[in-house]
């Protein structure tokens, strides 16, 4: 049901001279604060799936999708959340850059209806940027639950743009939104918004002066969808992206003008002068002016009942008794809110929060993932289904059909594609990863992760991280590669680097964790030793890194979303899409490893590599045979762990050797994909330095643990 690609004049590129008919689909870009439901809306509009979770900073990159609205097909673009047009963290910058570079036919500013007062300021900025805008009031259900009323037609009238209320997680209001989009044309919305915000007679001349310098001549205007006034405001606030953007377009032939250099120098001078005449920081000034405007609008269109208005506005500041003044909020809704309030206060309680965390870990991680999935399910799949039926059958069939020993070896040999790669991927990794992602999705969707951040902030400060870093760290237990990308949400470069090192070193990913839990769970002492060593390593390296690396100590600011009831549909789709992604990521690498090992064996390189790795292997007290495990570990740590599982099954290792091997392998680099992601986020040199540190250090730790355990005469 593909529609012909059409791009009617004046719509795809807003009628600019560079518009080429039929070049691409008209675009719809979703923008808004973090955690307001942009991705939910994207999923509802496009029918594809991008991750939705209940914490700010879920999306850290741009996602594209397609949607048919009315008679037309559109490209829909989801962006990472941003608080204002002026970004602070990296993922906000990703969105800001997109706004500079793309030109969409419609922009949807998604806000949380309940927080209209806080978010409308960004709407005004987007209007200032003269983007063709529709305001989407999402989470209308939560606003209603708290008895909040918003007069949508009135709001639309004040802003001069369409306003639509939605509950995107339930698909409510999507049809109305689609109608608004298809009725949206530039003509009838041609900048009805004329309530220009006046930033004061002191600063306005500067804004206009910079604006005037942006376009050196008539033909050479800045090629962006954002208005000159908005760019000028950004420059006065010394925004990096705005300057870089100007710098870049200056070099494009169409823009070039003999005056351009003089102009940009002039701009810099104006920015300096403007910041001098204002006694406060300009972003402070601009924000306050805008907010005054917003307050004026909000007072007219929004009604918040006393009870949910900050609990109490009494002069003495005492919390008022839980009186039901909520106009609409019925008893049951209010008791729902009270209940989640109670749970919340336990989860973030400085004392009670700790046992709550351990309960979640014990039931979710240990019992469900470790014992049930990695134990019972894997055992059944591996030994009964694959070991008992499939593998013998396939091996026998293959042997009789293909009489060449070399090929037999490749497919059904000891390290064969089928007998090793496919078996490991399906019987071992998949059930563990699936179970893990399931538990994980539930935890994410409740909103527990930001609470964990609050709980652990002061502990994380000791290792140079803020409580915000709890989120990528916990995500690392799912998949290090995804988590490495999420370090973008951390504020400073230093914090991002420390988080990246710790993710690469000490956070085992789900597949590996599951296998290690199942290997060691037969012997709780081994598991405890493994746990303590990895935890010590995490703390020690974090502590050292925070001492050695230059830069400021991190600070912690995090928005706390309400606890929400997870939606089963989202959990299932999310788990499925992550498993799908993981499987596609894992299987080719496993197969590649099998093939490389096969080539290595044919050419004798495999034996050579094994010989080399035998040295550190023997050095940490393991039998030479265990060298394969580490060789696999270079491909992926979980592949190595799977090899360890095999050795453990055949009883080749003693208890101490098993612990030492498990520890060493846990400390390895996670996998090639994670390494590539580190290169992308941190640069090649840093990535190389991290891995150059990790591999020797992993063996070194193994050596120390082995020496200590031997010296103490421990036998496990």
């Amino acid at each position, binding site marked *: 049901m593909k529609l012909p690609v059409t791009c009617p004049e004046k719509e795809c590129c807003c009628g600019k001279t560079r518009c080429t008919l039929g070049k691409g689909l008209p675009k719809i870009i979703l923008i808004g604060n973090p955690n307001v439901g942009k991705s939910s809306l994207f999923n509802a509009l496009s029918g594809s799936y991008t991750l939705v979770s209940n914490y700010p900073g879920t999306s850290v990159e741009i996602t594209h999708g397609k949607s048919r609205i009315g008679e037309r097909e559109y490209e829909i673009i989801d962006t990472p959340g941003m*608080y*204002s047009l*002026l970004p*602070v963290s990296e993922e906000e910058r990703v969105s800001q850059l997109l706004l500079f570079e793309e030109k969409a036919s419609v922009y949807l500013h998604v806000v949380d209806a*309940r*927080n209209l*007062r*806080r*978010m409308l300021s960004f709407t005004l900025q987007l209007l200032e940027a003269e983007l063709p805008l529709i305001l989407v009031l999402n989470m209308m259900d939560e606003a209603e639950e*708290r008895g909040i009323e918003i007069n949508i037609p009135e709001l639309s009238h004040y802003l001069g743009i369409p306003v639509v209320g939605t509950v995107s997680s339930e698909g409510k209001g999507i049809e109305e939104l689609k109608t608004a989009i298809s009725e949206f044309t530039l003509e009838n919305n041609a900048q009805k918004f004329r309530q220009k915000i006046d930033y004061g007679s002191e600063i306005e001349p500067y804004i206009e002066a910079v604006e005037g310098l942006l376009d050196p001549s008539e033909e050479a205007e800045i090629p962006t969808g954002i208005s000159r006034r908005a760019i000028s405001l950004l420059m006065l*606030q010394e925004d990096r992206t705005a300057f870089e953007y100007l710098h870049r377009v200056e070099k494009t032939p169409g823009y070039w003008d003999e005056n351009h250099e003089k102009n940009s120098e002039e701009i810099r001078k104006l920015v300096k002068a403007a910041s001098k005449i204002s*006694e*406060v*920081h300009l*972003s*402070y*000034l601009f*924000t*306050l002016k805008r*907010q005054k405007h917003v307050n004026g609008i909000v007072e007219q269109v929004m009604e*918040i009942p006393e009870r*949910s208005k*900050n*609990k*109490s*506005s*009494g002069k003495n*500041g*005492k*919390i008022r008794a839980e009186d039901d003044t909520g106009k609409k909020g019925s008893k049951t809704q209010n008791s729902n809110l009270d209940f989640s309030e109670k749970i919340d206060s336990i989860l*973030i309680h*400085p004392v009670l*929060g700790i046992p709550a965390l351990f309960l979640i870990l014990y039931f979710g991680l240990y019992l469900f993932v470790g014992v049930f999935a990695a134990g019972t399910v894997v055992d059944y799949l591996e030994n009964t289904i694959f070991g008992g039926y499939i593998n013998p059958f396939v091996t026998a069939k293959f042997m009789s059909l293909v009489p060449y020993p070399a090929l037999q070896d490749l497919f059904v040999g000891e390290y064969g594609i089928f007998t090793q790669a496919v078996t490991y991927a399906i019987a071992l990794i998949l059930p563990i990863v699936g179970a893990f992602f399931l538990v994980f999705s539930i935890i994410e969707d409740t909103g527990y992760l*930001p609470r964990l*951040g*609050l*709980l*652990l*902030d*002061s502990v994380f*400060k000791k290792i140079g991280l*803020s*409580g915000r870093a709890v989120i990528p760290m916990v995500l690392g237990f799912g998949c290090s590669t995804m988590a490495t990308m999420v370090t973008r949400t951390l*504020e400073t470069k230093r914090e991002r680097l420390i988080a990246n090192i710790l993710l690469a070193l000490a956070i085992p990913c789900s597949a590996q964790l599951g296998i290690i839990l199942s290997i060691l769970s037969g012997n709780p002492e081994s598991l405890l030793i493994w746990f303590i060593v990895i935890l010590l390593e995490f703390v020690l390296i974090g502590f050292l890194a925070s001492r050695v690396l230059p830069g400021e*100590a991190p*600070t*912690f*600011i*995090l*928005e*706390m979303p*309400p606890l929400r009831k997870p939606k089963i549909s989202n959990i299932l789709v999310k788990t499925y899409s992550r498993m799908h992604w993981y499987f596609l990521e894992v299987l080719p690498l496993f197969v590649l490893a099998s093939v490389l090992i096969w080539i290595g064996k044919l050419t004798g390189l495999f034996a050579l590599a094994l010989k080399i790795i035998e040295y550190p292997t023997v050095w940490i007290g393991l039998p030479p045979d265990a060298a394969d495990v580490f060789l696999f570990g270079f491909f992926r740590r979980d592949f190595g762990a799977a090899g360890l599982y095999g050795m453990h099954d055949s009883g080749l290792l003693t208890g101490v050797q098993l612990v030492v091997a498990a520890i060493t392998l846990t400390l390895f680099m996670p996998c090639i994909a994670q390494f590539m992601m580190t290169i992308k986020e941190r640069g090649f040199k840093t990535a190389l330095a991290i891995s150059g540190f990790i591999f020797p250090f992993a063996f070194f730790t193994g050596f120390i643990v082995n020496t200590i355990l031997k010296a103490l005469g421990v036998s496990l």
Partner: protein
Amino acid sequence: MVTKNSHLSLKTITLCAMEPRKTGKIDHLETKNPGILQKLMAMGILPGMPITLLRKSPSYLFEVDQTRYAVDREIANHIYVSC
């Protein structure tokens, strides 16, 4: 413009000095770091808004308008409240 509430009868203290479960009004923000200032303001922590401190440990948790925020001591020290 920086200070909204200048009633003499009200005392201005930082969020750190506030008692949990009390409500006040944000008076002003004071920090040398423009990044932090910008972030707080963009997140909606603005002078003139009523603010309720909910807890001080394990970290600071407070409510402004309809949203809750968690911050550390350092940040809480930048937020001046009159109550």
